[in-house]
């Protein structure tokens, strides 16, 4: 789940009676689980919300390469290096086909990327945290990709066809990344030294809460959820998804022999779910606003890459044009 707090621009969900015939026809298709395709009529707010959501997701894939790029030159074995390189390559691929899905809505990739670089567009808050040890490569794969999958599995049924199909493909690769991440941690815990086991626990301590924040604010503070749910852009609420993630992750945490930095985390037999402590929402909103530990570095790195590469892209275009002219002559 790489989209948080996606604005719908809609104050209140309309009832069918209040809708124009076009809108009603659109909503009835959605209610009947018929996918909306690029050429179909859609309300402008639906289109804009999807552009924001898909671009946020795409930006997250690309920015998400940076915390891993921090360790790919220092991976501790050939096998781990190859795994991490393959994961990073997959993420660049995810970014590309998400931008393509977004472009089917009439948006322009370069314009949306410019919004990322100006700070106008968001990406997942999680990538504003630093990766401080090799164990973070395991913890990111396990927790961050794990949280992403919980959301994306649901988004495979999202109402917009191109986005839904992108999610189906991405989910397969993400679950592979998650298993690899977990295996990195398991190896360190079971076969490693005390220093390595300390690294794993430290990584979990730092990334646990930020991973839970990936699901976005709790339902009562999620003003856009109702409309997104009605459009089936979103299919379950933030709190439902967060609970599912915690429920499936805690047994894995126990298998590792590690603990979560949450003294209130415990099984509630009555609810059939784990109870957990209060998330530090102040921190979440600060990070979203740009005040997290790495926001400035992440955006600056991306902006620099695209600025430094301008002459390369210009050369490619100029060369292609010359070849075309040559062929036409």
């Amino acid at each position, binding site marked *: 789940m790489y989209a948080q707090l996606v604005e719908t621009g809609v104050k209140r969900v309309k009832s069918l009676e209040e809708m124009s015939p076009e809108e009603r026809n659109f909503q009835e298709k959605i209610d009947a689980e018929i996918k909306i395709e690029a050429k179909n009529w859609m309300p402008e707010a639906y289109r804009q919300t999807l552009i924001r959501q898909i671009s946020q997701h795409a930006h997250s894939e690309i920015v998400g*390469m940076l915390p891993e790029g921090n360790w790919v030159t220092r991976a*501790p074995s050939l096998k781990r290096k190859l795994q991490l390189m393959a994961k990073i390559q997959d993420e*660049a691929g995810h970014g590309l086909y998400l931008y393509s899905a977004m472009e089917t809505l009439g948006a322009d990739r370069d314009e949306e990327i410019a919004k990322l670089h100006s700070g106008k567009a968001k990406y997942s808050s999680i990538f504003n945290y630093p990766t401080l040890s090799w164990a973070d490569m395991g913890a990111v794969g396990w927790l961050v990709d794990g949280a992403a999958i919980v959301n994306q599995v649901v988004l495979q049924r999202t109402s917009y066809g191109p986005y839904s199909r992108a999610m189906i493909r991405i989910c397969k690769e993400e679950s592979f990344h998650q298993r690899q991440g977990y295996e990195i941690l398991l190896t*360190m815990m079971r076969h490693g030294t005390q220093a390595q086991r300390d690294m794993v626990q430290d990584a979990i301590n730092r990334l646990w809460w930020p991973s839970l924040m990936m699901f976005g604010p709790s339902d009562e503070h999620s003003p856009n959820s109702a409309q997104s749910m009605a459009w089936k852009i979103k299919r379950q609420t933030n709190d439902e998804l967060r609970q599912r993630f915690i429920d499936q992750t805690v047994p894995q945490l126990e298998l590792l022999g590690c603990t979560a930095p949450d003294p209130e985390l415990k099984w509630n037999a009555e609810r059939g779910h784990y109870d957990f402590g209060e998330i530090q929402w102040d921190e979440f909103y600060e990070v979203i606003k740009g005040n997290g530990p790495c926001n400035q570095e992440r955006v600056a790195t991306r902006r620099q*890459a695209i600025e430094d590469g301008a002459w390369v892209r210009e050369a490619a*275009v100029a060369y292609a044009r010359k070849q075309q002219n040559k062929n036409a002559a």
Partner: protein
Amino acid sequence: MHNEALIPYLLLLGDSALVQGQRLCEWCGHAPAIEEELALMNVGLDLVGQARNWLEYAAELLDDGRDADALAFRRDERAYRNLLLVEQPNGDFAVTMTKQFLYDAWHYAVLRGLAGSSDERIAGIAAKALKEVTYHLRRSSEWVQRLGGGTEESRQRMLAAIPALWRFTVELTTASDNEVQLAEAGIAADPSTVAAAWLKQVSDSFASVELPLPKAASHFYLDSRKGLHTEHLGLLLAEMQFLPRAYPDATW
């Protein structure tokens, strides 16, 4: 005797692929377009995979208890046998692609020779690698053309990149006595065939966009076949080898 000659040759192949792959990892998040993020990492992935195959074979022949990881992560720079070319810093995209192209043209010619090696293990690794490197060479030669024939700026950058790297190409067109003997035994790629194929590929690609071909590089003090590297390799290895060096008892 046979192994004594073969091991340094396997290290030349494996270390060059590894160091080139490591340099490509440094591009992560900094490439000029997302398509290039994908492509640079993809080429790097192929090369590190190939390096693992060569180093595993070298480790078996060495038979001193070290495996491919020990060779990659615990050897000092004086024991590394990679080409001086690939350890050079990435510079701008023109330097990176010129470096890649000069290496690919050599790599492709070497692997073509090795695919017919009398050593079956080498022939097998080379045949698989050749498929990957065929694509690497196509890609990097296309970039040489785009940058050489693109805009005035890209051309100026190519004109600066080529002479900066050219002196290291002497290693691509010369061979040690060791390699000559291995080639005569049908094990290694024939050095004169490699040199001729390399020169033809480079001169054709340069000529296609009117990039001047410098005169043949001459031998100089440093020589990777003797473990005499530029200052850049030590720093590259310090970064790459950090974890296994800092935690010698660890299992990753």
